Structure formats: C-alpha cells, structure tokens
C-alpha cells in the first residue's frame, strides 16, 4: 500500500466522519467546527488530485469565508450552550432509511456504468492555463460566464446589505434614544 493510497483513505475518513458529525451533533457550534473539518478534507482531496488552484480556492472561500460567516451568524442568533431540540426518533430513522436506499441505488448505477476516459494528451491544470481559458473569448472560453457570475455576486452582496440593514421606521424608540445620546 503506497503513501498516496494511505493519504486517500485518511482523507476519506476525515471527510465522511466529520460530515456525519456535522449533521448529527446537537451542539450547533460543534456542528460548524465539524463542517470546517469536512471542508478541509475536501480541499485535501483536491490537493491529492493535484488541482492546487481549486484546493486553494476551496480553503480561502469555504474554510476561510463561509464557515466564519456561519460561525458569526451562530453567535448572533443562538444562546451559548443551548442544545438543539431533539428530533423525533421515527423521523430520524425514516430519513436515514430513505437516504441509505437512495445512496445504494446511486452507487449501484455508478458501479454498473463503465466510464470511458479520453486518450488525448492531458493538460496541466495550473493557474496559467486556467486564467487563459477563463478570459478567452474564443470557442471554449469562459469570459461570458465569468462576467455573468461577477454581476450575480455584486447583486447578491448589494441584496444582502438591503436585507440586513436595520430600518429606522420599525424601531423608532431606539433611534430616538440614540439621537438623544448624540
């Protein structure tokens, strides 16, 4: 058994065990930390497949961005040390059975399918190749989706500010108090 194989199975155990704990832990903060480890395991898979750029993006955006956002929103909305309410055991058993049956069905289809790989020369997925293809306007280039996604991100962030902004009309008392302080 080579080192690469051992690393693969360690990453698999890390990812799957922490994912199971993330969806089953009753302490929400611990669930967020388990989610963090699961995302790090997935970044490890990208490193294992030698897609370094995607692994870096995964760590920056998911581990450094989204998980921190989730942890902050936990701080803002949950009481410390409070457990999540226990779900009905029948519902949990039903969900687990449904999920396991679907998993078995999908894996059966995957193992029955014979994937045929291309025989053409592989290209290196380094940052230079990705950047050139990302901004190419020729056939196979991704310039238009890049622009569309950038507009989507801008719209989403402006929308977040509009949703989360504290409006002065709904809470006139606090604003009056604040104005008095000033």
């Amino acid at each position, binding site marked *: *058994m080579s080192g*690469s*194989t051992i690393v*693969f*199975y360690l990453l698999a155990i890390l*990812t*799957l065990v922490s*994912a*199971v704990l*993330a*969806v*089953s832990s009753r302490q929400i903060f611990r669930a*967020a930390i388990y*989610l963090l480890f*699961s*995302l790090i395991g*997935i970044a490890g*898979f*990208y490193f294992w*497949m030698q*897609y370094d750029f*995607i692994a870096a993006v995964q760590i920056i*955006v*998911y581990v450094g*961005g*989204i998980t921190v*956002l*989730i942890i902050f929103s*936990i701080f*803002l*909305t*949950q009481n410390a040390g409070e457990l999540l*309410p226990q*779900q009905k055991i029948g519902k*949990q058993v039903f*969900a687990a059975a*449904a*999920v396991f049956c*679907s*998993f078995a069905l*999908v*894996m059966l289809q*995957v193992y029955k399918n014979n*994937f045929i*790989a291309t025989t*053409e*020369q*592989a*290209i290196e*997925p380094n940052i230079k190749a990705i950047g050139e*293809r990302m901004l190419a306007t020729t056939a196979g280039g991704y310039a238009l*989706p890049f622009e569309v*996604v950038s507009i*989507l*991100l801008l719209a*989403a962030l402006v*929308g*977040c*500010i509009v*949703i989360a902004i504290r409006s002065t009309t709904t809470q006139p008392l606090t604003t009056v108090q604040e104005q008095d302080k000033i």
Partner: protein
Amino acid sequence: MLLLPGLYHLLFISTALFFIGMFGFFTRKNLITMLMSVELILNSVNLNFIAFNKYLWPNRLDGVFFTIFVIAIAAAEAAVAIAIIINLYRSHQSIDVAQTEEMKY
C-alpha cells in the same frame, strides 16, 4: 486492484457526502444547520466535477470552471441566506423553521 483509489472511490465519497447532507436537510429544523447541509451537498457536487475532469477528460478544463462558478454562486447563496436568517431572527427571535410559518401561504 480494488483498494487502489480511483474514480469509483471518489464517486463513492461524493455520493456519500451528498446523502449525508440530504440526511441533515431532512432531520434538522434550525435554519443555520440546514444551510450547513446545503454546503455539504454543494461540496459533493464540486468533488464530482473535479474527479470527472481528472479521470475522464484530463485534456480539458471544463470541470475546473464549473467548480469555480459553483463556489462563487455558493458564496453568494450563503451570504444572502445568512442575511435573511439574521433578519428573521430580528423579527421573530427564532430561526426554527417550525416557528416561522408566515411565508407559508
């Protein structure tokens, strides 16, 4: 050799992650934990894209681009979801889906 990791092993892991996220989505009632389940599901999709790109079409980069765009859209989705969650908590003092039923009808 069956134990040597390859495409099928990665597909197993991504399918397992997808259905673990699905289980969380079925059983959780708290909006933040449901958002965490959605993140797991999106990550399993990304892993699938990269695995197919690595093992079936190494001469192209399409899987990489799909993964990058999915990550960007997931970031936007998480930001909007958390803004909605915080706003909901402000008006209802709760982010339990069973207690916030005003948007149901």
